[in-house]
């Protein structure tokens, strides 16, 4: 039927926490790439695999519970399915939680694409005495059902076979529709007829949606479909009055709004299917997950455990990170040495390679192990299911800030990188809560700022590096808290909105899954080192080396001149012109602050930079500089994502100026107060 050369397009849909990502990883392995859905910052993952000589091109859709127009993710899913018409939609469902998962399945079926149900985590379900009659389930739903265990890579081949045979027509799909009851069905039928007879609508929509689906959505008062229909229906089209009449008719019969009736019937259908096909051997009251929760969300012990995990995260990052850092440092130092011996002339080339490239990029590359470990820890917190518990534990504290527990998850993620953290605010229902959470996120010190602290604490606070770094992190958290309170009071007065959040069962993370998760995020830093930071280092080298003949990185160089112009701004903080240059370029990416010093002060060798730094900073101004780096204007990538997520430049500009002003104020206070008290002067 279909051209057998063309790749089969497969869309992976499913509830959040149904193990969709694991199955996507099983299917595609390393052949995947992450991008964004056009126009929105919802992550889009694509990958490929082969089966029976056919290529399968797989798109991982965002996890959703339904297909309404209430959240962006849901709109992305249904628009993708409607517009791209994938050959098959694979719906991944948690076998231990079938009823809720099938709710989405019925809506996918309604869209009129072939659906394959991938029943995941069947091992857990049978362990808990849940017995699912797969054949009956498949018959009742009219779709093929594939049992799977994603964590152990079981069922992956069977799924691929089923996809191929579904496309080649070997598997029969039966058209099963949810029956919405006599009166609603009559109205749906009426509307279908009107839709078919409207030229404007048929031309625009019928390639994508079925008339039945459109009719149901119109009855449900789906705001997006409504808007589209208004835009494309002919001016004298009877559809508008027909919809209104149907809604009116139904609400007088049922006394409830139509959306509720439709939802109830959909649930009724699902309950019926589950009653038939699922047999429970025993009622269970406490699962293993509940028993773990008894300890980890305990009224008294919950918080100490949480504090322990956080401490462990930082301990592993700094302690374990030290060893590979020493090796990379050794490589970078020797490479700089080697390069300076091999390339002796011309002098500018030697300087370019040794000071510019190796000095600049090397200074940042040294910190990769710490960055990777931090991301590994955050991935573990997410993949085990603990992150949702942390939100539960922190809810009361967050309420005091006028936010709620869910806002806490992006804040922990901010310790890794603020860009995905800002995107993670998507899960917050309230727009006000979201904007506050986004605005305070940059104060959570990300791994890109770590190199700055590491460099400065090594040079100035060798004895108690840990304590000083900790104090900087703490300062960030305190500023986030204070800012949240201020924003809630002055910018967004009012209570935070109520929230509901799923607590997924605890899971053992798989090495593969966690690694891919970590790699997705951390590899961005490697790419950054090769692109933005390299470019930044080259620019700074250029500015330091030219005009020819001046002292390298001296006041006569271009960098020196630029720094001189900016110096008045930073003078009151006790910073010199080099700090001005470093901070200016640091806006591109915060690591550049370090690579600027690597380049300006010459040589990619840690020791040399340290001793040179001691000539320009005192311990007091060094501390002020670290504080400034923590607080000031977020990096360009973060500013861009703030703009995208808040939907306006207004908040991006606000974030930039607010944090700059706050940074200046803090550094000024540290410097002045310290000088008066005679600390570290």
């Amino acid at each position: 039927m279909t051209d057998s050369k063309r790749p089969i397009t497969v869309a992976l849909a499913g509830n959040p926490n149904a193990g969709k990502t694991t199955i996507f990883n099983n299917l595609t392995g390393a052949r995947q790439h992450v991008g964004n859905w056009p126009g929105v910052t919802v992550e889009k993952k694509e990958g490929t695999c082969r089966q029976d000589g056919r290529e399968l091109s797989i798109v991982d859709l965002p996890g959703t519970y339904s297909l309404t127009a209430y959240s962006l993710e849901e709109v992305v899913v249904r628009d993708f399915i409607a517009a791209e018409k994938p050959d098959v939609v694979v719906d991944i469902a948690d076998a231990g939680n079938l009823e809720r998962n099938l709710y989405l399945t019925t809506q996918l079926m309604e869209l009129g694409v072939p659906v394959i149900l991938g029943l995941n985590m069947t091992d857990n379900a049978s362990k808990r005495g849940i017995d699912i009659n797969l054949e009956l389930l498949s018959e009742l739903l009219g779709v093929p059902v594939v049992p799977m265990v994603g964590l152990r890579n079981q069922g992956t081949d069977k799924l691929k076979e089923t996809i191929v045979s579904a496309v080649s027509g070997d598997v029969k799909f039966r058209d099963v529709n949810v029956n919405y009851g006599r009166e609603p069905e009559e109205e749906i039928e009426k509307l279908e007829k009107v839709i078919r007879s409207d030229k404007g609508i048929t031309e625009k929509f019928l390639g994508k949606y079925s008339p039945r689906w459109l009719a149901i959505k119109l009855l449900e008062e789906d705001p997006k479909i409504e808007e589209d229909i208004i835009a494309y229906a002919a001016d004298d089209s009877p559809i508008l009055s027909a919809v209104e009449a149907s809604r009116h008719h139904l609400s007088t019969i049922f006394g409830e709004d139509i959306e509720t009736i439709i939802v109830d019937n959909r649930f009724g259908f699902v309950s019926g299917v589950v009653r038939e096909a699922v047999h429970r051997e025993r009622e269970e009251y406490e699962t293993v997950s509940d028993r773990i929760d008894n300890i980890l969300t305990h009224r008294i012990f919950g918080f100490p455990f949480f504090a322990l995990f956080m401490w462990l995260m930082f301990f592993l990052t700094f302690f374990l990170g030290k060893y590979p850092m020493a090796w990379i440092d050794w490589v970078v130092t020797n490479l700089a040495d080697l390069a300076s011996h091999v390339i002796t002339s011309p002098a500018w080339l030697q300087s370019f390679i040794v000071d510019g490239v190796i000095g600049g990029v090397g200074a940042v590359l040294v910190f990769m192990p710490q960055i990777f470990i931090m991301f590994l820890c955050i991935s573990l917190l997410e993949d085990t299911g603990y992150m949702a518990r942390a939100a539960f534990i922190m809810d009361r504290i967050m309420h005091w800030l006028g936010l709620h527990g869910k806002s806490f998850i992006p804040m922990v993620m901010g310790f890794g990188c603020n860009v995905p953290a800002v995107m993670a605010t998507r899960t917050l229902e309230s727009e006000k809560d979201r904007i506050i959470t986004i605005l305070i996120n940059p104060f959570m010190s990300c791994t890109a700022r770590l190199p700055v602290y590491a460099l400065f604490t090594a040079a100035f606070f060798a004895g108690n590096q840990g304590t000083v770094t900790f104090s900087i992190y703490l300062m960030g958290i305190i500023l986030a808290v204070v800012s949240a309170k201020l924003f809630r009071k002055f910018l967004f007065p009012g209570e935070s909105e109520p929230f509901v959040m799923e607590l997924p069962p605890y899971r053992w993370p798989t090495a593969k899954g966690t690694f891919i998760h970590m790699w997705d995020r951390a590899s961005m830093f490697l790419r950054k080192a090769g692109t933005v930071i390299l470019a930044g280092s080259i620019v700074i080298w250029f500015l330091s080396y030219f005009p020819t003949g001046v002292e390298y990185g001296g006041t006569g160089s271009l960098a020196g001149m630029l720094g001189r112009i900016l110096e008045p701004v930073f003078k009151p903080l006790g910073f010199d012109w080099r700090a001005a240059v470093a901070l200016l370029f640091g806006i591109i990416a915060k690591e550049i602050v370090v690579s600027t010093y690597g380049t300006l002060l010459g040589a990619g060798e840690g020791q040399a930079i340290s001793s040179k730094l001691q000539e320009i900073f005192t311990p007091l101004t060094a501390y002020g500089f670290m504080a400034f780096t923590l607080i000031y204007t977020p990096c360009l990538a973060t500013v861009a994502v703030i703009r995208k997520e808040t939907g306006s430049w207004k908040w991006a500009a606000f974030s930039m100026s607010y944090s700059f002003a706050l940074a200046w104020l803090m550094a000024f206070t540290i410097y002045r107060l310290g000088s008066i008290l005679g600390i570290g002067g």
Partner: protein
Amino acid sequence: MMSADIKMPLGFMNSGESGVIEEIRGMRHPAMECEVEHPHRISRWGQLRMHPQHANRGKKLENRLVCMGIVPGESIQIVKNSAPGPVIVAIKDTRLCLDRALACKIMVSRT
């Protein structure tokens, strides 16, 4: 099945207790929130429409509850009530965390 017990807010029940959801209160007050941003829409849709962003604020949350299985008639169990903090409930095989404000809007008859 239904006990004669009076309805009580979920948030007032103790850990370990269970009940049946009767109704969800105060989800839809579009009239309080809504402003007419697109008057032309009103004229085309009769009295039906308000700007979706305003009218749907309560519905959005209700929809999330429905998707998570919080619908009238469903049995629900309190796993942990950490008053004055949030509540963890079990519905079917899902564990959900509801904040206090929401837990007090869900009316339950105890079983």
